[in-house]
């Protein structure tokens, strides 16, 4: 019985909690925080239940719901999950309470902050849960709004950017850039979705997946007066999707909004941004691009692989070059997400061919890397936030020798950094290994380059650790309590547990999506 409503509950509980939060009197800050936090545990509990109840062996989408939503254009409210989305839903519902927990330091307009945060969660979950293209677009876009305001209103207060001769606050610049770039990126998505709707006569992703790739009549017969062959149209629509998702991931050269947005966002915002929002793009590749455009995907997979490799290498070098700790972590996301895309690119090329087995490795790696990066990036941003909270600086040169002042913090930072760097035994290693294993036979050259990128990853991670923890103690902080507090430890603990457990025994999570991935790439 609950299965019928499970996904709807997961989807709407956050926004409901958010709206209820708004009803609490403004002054009762503690009540607001606790209410939001406890409320955000509900979707987590529900998604754990969903994860347990999900049957990996059964093909197709589970826990489906379907209702009329916008009958005039044939869009319906349709939800469903497969293995990939189960994992990502889990990630989103896990990171939200952690982010809320870490937002205790927000003092200004807490109510609105929490409400926006929960709205953001609904937006993210919607993308993972929906099986209707219009709704997909709806949730895809809707997450932008809370994110924009979180950066714009609660972002770092320092820093300015010069734009057109005028000094404007950096957070305004970053938030607007984030919004405009991602919106511009999704224009093509909007057009492509409406075009698909017109041609296919439905927005149901399952149904479209079935008919779209086989479509070969002239478009004029399908009601679109374009005199070009359908292949061309498909190619254009393919690129529209790819660009929209590539901006979100982000893949070089569409990544420029990311460092700014991450740097200026409040800690929790960065956590969600890196932990979940970036996955939306990768999810889009797997959910929509691969099933809808297998032919185009195969033809252009090399472009994606190339860009992914550039992202990995450039991201790593860029991170190395940063003096700002948060920017460093931000660029590391470009680097890590590059592996996700590399895996996807490999699958694009190999899906449905004889080397589909390699594709399974690659996609499994990509999905796991999404999850892992969600954990480690969130953790890193959390830790950067902690240290910034104490020192009010993000400049690596301004820390120094903090290990002695905050041993627990230091330990956690090193642990998380190692996970991020891909130390065997921790989660990052497993997923990157899987990606590399899958991509190697398909794109050997790119994979080699990426591995070289991994070296640089080691360098920048160590640079971060050295800058903060090691070296001579910066006397300025001698009397400052730097040590991580209990609330923050509670927040990061689940992340660490997961990092370790995946690193040691990855199959508990891989088996959730393995069969979905196999069906996806046709192995």
């Amino acid at each position: 019985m609950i299965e019928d409503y499970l996904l709807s509950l997961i989807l709407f509980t956050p926004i409901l909690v958010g709206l209820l939060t708004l009803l609490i009197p403004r002054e009762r800050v503690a009540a607001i925080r606790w209410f939001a936090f406890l409320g955000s545990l509900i979707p987590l509990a529900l998604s754990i239940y969903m994860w347990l109840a999900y049957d990996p062996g059964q093909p197709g989408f589970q826990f489906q719901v379907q209702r009329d939503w916008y009958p005039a254009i044939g869009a319906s409210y349709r939800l469903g999950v497969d293995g990939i989305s189960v994992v990502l839903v889990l990630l989103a519902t896990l990171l939200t309470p952690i982010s809320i927990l870490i937002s205790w330091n927000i003092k200004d307009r807490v109510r609105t902050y929490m409400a926006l945060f929960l709205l953001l969660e609904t937006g993210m979950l919607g993308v993972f849960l929906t099986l209707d293209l219009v709704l997909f677009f709806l949730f895809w876009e809707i997450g932008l709004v809370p994110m924009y305001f979180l950066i714009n209103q609660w972002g770092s207060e320092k820093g300015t950017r010069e734009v057109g001769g005028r000094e404007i606050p950096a957070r305004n610049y970053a938030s607007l850039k984030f919004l405009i770039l991602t919106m511009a990126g999704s224009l093509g998505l909007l057009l492509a979705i409406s075009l698909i709707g017109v041609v296919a006569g439905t927005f149901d992703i399952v149904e479209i997946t079935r008919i779209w790739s086989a479509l070969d009549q002239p478009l004029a017969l399908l009601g679109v007066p374009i005199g070009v062959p359908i292949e061309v149209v498909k190619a254009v629509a393919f690129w529209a999707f790819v660009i929209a998702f590539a901006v979100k991931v982000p893949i070089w050269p569409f990544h420029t909004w990311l460092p700014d947005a991450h740097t200026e966002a409040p800690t929790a915002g960065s956590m969600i941004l890196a932990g979940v929002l970036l996955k939306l793009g990768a999810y889009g590749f797997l959910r929509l691009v691969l099933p809808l455009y297998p032919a185009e995907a195969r033809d252009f997979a090399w472009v994606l692989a190339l860009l992914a490799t550039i992202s990995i290498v450039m991201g790593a070098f860029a991170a190395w070059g940063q003096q700002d700790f948060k920017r460093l972590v931000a660029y590391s996301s470009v680097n890590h997400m590059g592996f996700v895309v590399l895996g996807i690119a490999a699958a694009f090329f190999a899906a449905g061919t004889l080397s589909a087995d390699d594709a399974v490795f690659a996609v499994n790696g990509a999905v796991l890397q999404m999850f892992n990066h969600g954990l480690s990036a969130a953790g890193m941003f959390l830790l950067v936030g902690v240290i910034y909270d104490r020192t009010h600086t993000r400049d690596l040169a301004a820390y120094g020798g903090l290990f002695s002042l905050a041993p627990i913090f230091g330990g956690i930072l090193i642990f998380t950094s190692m996970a991020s760097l891909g130390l065997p035994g921790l989660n990052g290693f497993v997923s990157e290994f899987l990606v590399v294993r899958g991509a190697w036979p398909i794109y050997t050259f790119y994979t080699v380059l990426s591995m070289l990128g991994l070296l640089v990853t080691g360098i920048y991670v160590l640079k971060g650790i050295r800058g903060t923890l090691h070296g001579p103690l910066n006397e300025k902080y001698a009397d400052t309590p730097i040590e991580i507090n209990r609330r923050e430890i509670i927040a990061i603990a689940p992340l660490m547990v997961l990092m370790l457990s995946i690193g040691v025994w990855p199959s508990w999570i891989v088996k959730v999506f393995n069969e979905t991935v196999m069906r996806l790439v046709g192995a």
Partner: protein
Amino acid sequence: MNFPILSVIVFTPVVAGVILLFFPQDRHDWIRWFALAAATLALLLSLVVFIGYDSAEGGYQFQERAEWIPALGISYFVGVDGMSAPMVLLTGIVIFTGVLISWRLDDRPREFFLFLFILATGVFGVFVSLDLFQLFFFYEIALFPMFLLIAIWGWKVTREYAAMKLTLYLFIGSVIALVGGLVMVFSSGLETFDMLQLQTAGFSTTFQRIWFPFVFFGFAVLAGIFPFHNWSPDGHVAAPTAVSMFHAGVLMKLGAFAALRVGIVLLPEGARFWAPLILVLASINVIYGAFIAMVQTDFKYVIGFSSVSHMGLVLLGFATLNRDGLTGAGLQMFSHGVMTALFFAVVGMVYDRTHTREIPRLGGISKVMPLATVAFIVGGLVSMGMPGLSGFVAEFPIFMGLWRTQPIIAIVVVISIVITAAYIMRIIGKVFFGAMPEEFEGQFGDVLVQDKVALVLLSALLVLIGVYPAVMAPMVASGAEAVLRALGVG
């Protein structure tokens, strides 16, 4: 239904306006409360019509008919279909919120509400008219109060110029359409102004092609179609708040609606012939309006040009001449009406307090007027077509419709979304969240309760339709079906 609900809706405002004239001039409170009561009645009744309309059955419902000038086949003939029922509701909403927003108006409120109510009667009348003569009758009733409302209560700097410009533009459009209408009636040989009968007149193709532009563009002037859009931003800017709301919220739809009902429905062949031109002009509206809005520094001009841009989408939807496009256009009319009413309400509130509309001189409004800020943000998101709000629900089918007719246009027009996002976000960032200039510190307080009611109502509607389009979409779709039948493709 025996109760003549449409007639009551149409005449409630004007009757209330006349009664107002007998109030003592200086009892401003009585006048306001009475005006509010009348507006509430109109709103409730239009809600009844909206809810009572049976979308599954379609067609014209709540019909009433009486002989008016039988010698010429003119009758008083009203009814609503899926296109007009939401418009009636929109008018009810805007008149209601318009009265609320005007609570602080102190200069001759009696006359103000009288003219506003005459305007409302005209607008209601057009939306429910099924008789061509009656349509013109109410159409022009809706025009002239604008002049006085703007000229008397408008912004001192440009009101005279703007009022005159607006009135003349619109009047030119309407009389040209009038000649077209008369020619249609004569040529039909039916000796009637009944639009349902005229629909069956079977005008020759040549005739339709010659006369369609007169009728369509005559009305489309009021919808602000390029290059006849010039009156509209000036008018918006000069008008007092409630009038801007009415003007952009309802009047521009009046033009679009009449262009649809008289132009496209009665002269379908002409519509087909001229649709490419309309598509081009309307897409210029969309893009050009958005660009001009972006470079304005006057808060109200930004919104004024954004209306030009958004009305372009409505006309685009019409010009697709297919189900998706028409449905989208119908929804866009409602959505934009509510959204722009909301915009102008907020702009008015800000201006009332700061006495400036120069964006660079404004800032920090969110601290003082949080609710107005939220409302403006909601409106802003609607205007950039953010999914989950009504703007998306309206624009999406328009794009689908465009794919079926002129894909190039769809690709070009979509750019406007980003431009819109840019200028809306710029305003939100500067006016509402920017640093508050010292001169404003502590100078003014939050909006009135009446204002809040209006803002909440308007924002809630935008969200409701966006989240659950099924409250309105099937109705509009049934209206679109009727248009398609007239076009012979439904």
